[in-house]
């Protein structure tokens, strides 16, 4: 195997791994931002329905996810 070949192999292996880690990090980032924003909205008196509308989910879904953590 030449030096170039091994370099290409390494790049091929690294690319999906890095891409997938980026996807995972984006999900984590979105989850954490969602939690922060939902908590803030509730503290400002938003209803679960208003929050759900903004997030594009049902009121039940957002309440089930955050009802226990945020009053």
């Amino acid at each position, binding site marked *: 195997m030449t030096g170039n070949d091994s370099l290409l192999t390494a790049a091929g292996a690294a690319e999906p791994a890095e*891409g997938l*880690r*980026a996807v*995972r*990090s984006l999900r984590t*980032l979105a989850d*954490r931002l969602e939690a*922060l924003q939902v908590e*803030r909205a509730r503290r400002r008196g938003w209803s679960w329905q208003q929050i759900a509308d903004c997030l594009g989910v049902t009121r039940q879904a957002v309440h089930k996810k955050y009802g226990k953590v945020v009053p």
Partner: protein
Amino acid sequence: MFERFTRDARAAVTLAQDEAGALGAERIDADHVLLAAVRTDGAARRALASLGVQPDDVAAAVRAREGLDDEALASIGVDLAAIREQVESTFGPGALDAGPPTSPRTFTPDAKKLLEVALREAVRSRRRSIDTGHLLLAAVRLDETGAHAALGALGLTDDAVRDAVTAAWAAAA
């Protein structure tokens, strides 16, 4: 299966729930069990200490794996530092570091497997009970789990950890 666990291994399994909860995890995963095993006073902690790795180092490795990978995000053009700065100006310092605490009650398949393999390691080492050393050995053996990845991120090789556990047992005997 827990009847064969020593007191320190039981304490570690209980602590794993707290570790997972503090990290905002929905379920207790293999790396939470590993972290708890190392935080508990026992063979696992002594073995890693002999390799220069402290419980807080393991905690950092576990957090990094579960958290936000700034390099991977940069590869798709997302500047995590800029996001962090913006979010912290609104929500305060450290706002992005972890999700809200949870109280997970179930184990992931990886975590269950780790406990089973720890049991097998105990049989293999001809010990009657499972201690934190066996939990650490199981993490070494299960190379597709987050627990193994966390050890790898600390630069620990499988052989070095195995030898260190054996030495920690010998020293305690």
